């Protein structure tokens, strides 16, 4: 959409709301992508840290 006239935000960004509460669910410990997730979680890495390895 087109930016309305006179819109301002700090560093061009304005935070308005928050995400609704998430549901806790069990993911299936299966497959390549899960193993990557488990590795990140156990080593407390973020996606970009993981990318660098």
């Amino acid at each position: 959409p087109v930016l309305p006239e006179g819109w301002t935000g700090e560093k061009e960004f304005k935070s308005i709301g928050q995400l609704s509460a998430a549901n806790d669910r069990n993911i299936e410990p299966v497959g390549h992508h899960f193993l990557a997730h488990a590795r990140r979680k156990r080593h407390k890495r973020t996606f970009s840290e993981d990318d660098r390895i």
Partner: protein
Amino acid sequence: MSAENDPTQRVAIGISFGNSYSSIAYTTGEGRAEVIANEDGDRQIPSFLSYVEGEELHGGQAKPQIVRNAKNTVAYFRDFLGQEFKSIDPTAAHQSAHAVQHESTVAFKIRDTQEETENEVTVSTITSRHLTRLRKSASDYLGKAVNSAVITVPTNFSDAQKDALNKAAKEAGIEVLQFISEPTAAVLAYDARPDAKLADKIIVVADLGGTRSDIAVIASRGGIYTVLATVHDYEVTGLKLDQVLMDYFAKEFLKKNKDASDPREDARGLAKLKLECEAVKKALSIGSSANFSVESLVGGIDYTATINRTRYDLLGNKLFGAFSRLVLHAVEKANLDPLDITEVILAGGNANTPKVASTVAAAFPETTTILAPSTSSSAIIPSELAVRGAAIQASLIQEFDLEDIEQSSHPAVTVTPHLAHAVGVLCISGDETSGIFHPIVETETSLPVRRTAIIATPREGGDVLIKLAEGLRHIKVTKPEPKPKAEKDEDDSDDDESDEEEEVREKTWKVGNVLSEAAIRGVKKGGKVEVQINIGADLGVNAIYREVGGKGGVRGIIQGSKASNGSA
């Protein structure tokens, strides 16, 4: 420990262990899963063991023994493992060795040695003998001693059942690397194919087995799977389909032979009928007609007949319909609509029946892909799905330490927050009421997640507003104008008798919570904006917006609410 527990010495396979059939598979050097045929040439190996004068018969050789040697033939025992005697349903095992109580567990009284005495053999010993034979077949085929495996189990298999299976496997010389659930294995079997594309989708795995039907609704998000709902049923089964054929042929037989007795009331006649009907059922999955032929069915009378598929489809109609209702029930249990389902994977031997696939397909919109041999040329053989998934998982984790695998599949790792609503951007208009929601991260995606999308901007370019919001999926029901009828229940999915005024149902988005606004100034004419969204486990959002090919961009952070939950 022994060499078997040394990851470098492992030879791992995938095993699917069912009540009716089991199979074994390995993964080739190129990463393709291959199902192994045993020495009889069977890929679907009957989970049967039979003893003749102390000699052990297994699989396809043991199965015909239910005619002559029913008492010493053990079948349909998987679900007895790790169970108390009083909680099992021994119906399927009626025609073979009966289950008896043995201390707190289940055993079979069989003559399994050359001696004339009956021994009580526990179900765990039977299982371990069965697994030993499977392991041997795989070892012979691979030319290497197999010593470990990933085994598939139903989603409702308890820890006690898994422990019992683990023990039995150990006795069979198999180190269980991991138990994985059957539906997830089926999804993995499809996703691991080289031509498979990673996508966010909701998959229903509908497994019509011999003694049970299991349906699972799975969210696949970036290759990570979450089971949203499961349904288990022990009434709508492949054995019931066999029964339908048995009743049909028994009646036809009685019509032809007025003085003969009912083959269903004779133990041997029944066993012969049963074996032949299963074969007829299989033949009808491939051809449009099949021959039924049994020598000396009952009272020394031979009986041959033919049946065509149309007749069988009619006979089984009730069960096919019941199965498709089970599938819809699972979708409902997951709080979803058939429109939300991207794919239905049909698994289990009975999914080879074309009518099963077409009945299930009719329950879903045309946008849903039905993966079965009769509806899709790229479908994998339904009976091989679980074992292929197991073989792939085995190849992925075979080099890991057992401790690592256990820690990784621990709830601390697997329990993760999942998005309650989709997150995306508004197109066309910034106003929530007239904007069109474009989802970037789908609902039920596990966190943390990172997604990137390219979105179009207004034609003329210029300054652009990007509004991040939550989207709620909504089913819009449009009824045709002419004859308005009484309101239909949205969830009542079995109501399409009134073809004339069929309502049109479609998936739309309602914009929920608005999360943030961002401005990108001076976008070129026809330019596109790349949006990258990172959502953390704390529900914090980190968004980056950048014009494609442009410099800089806007970065914004929305604080997570999870830590300070309760105030909102």
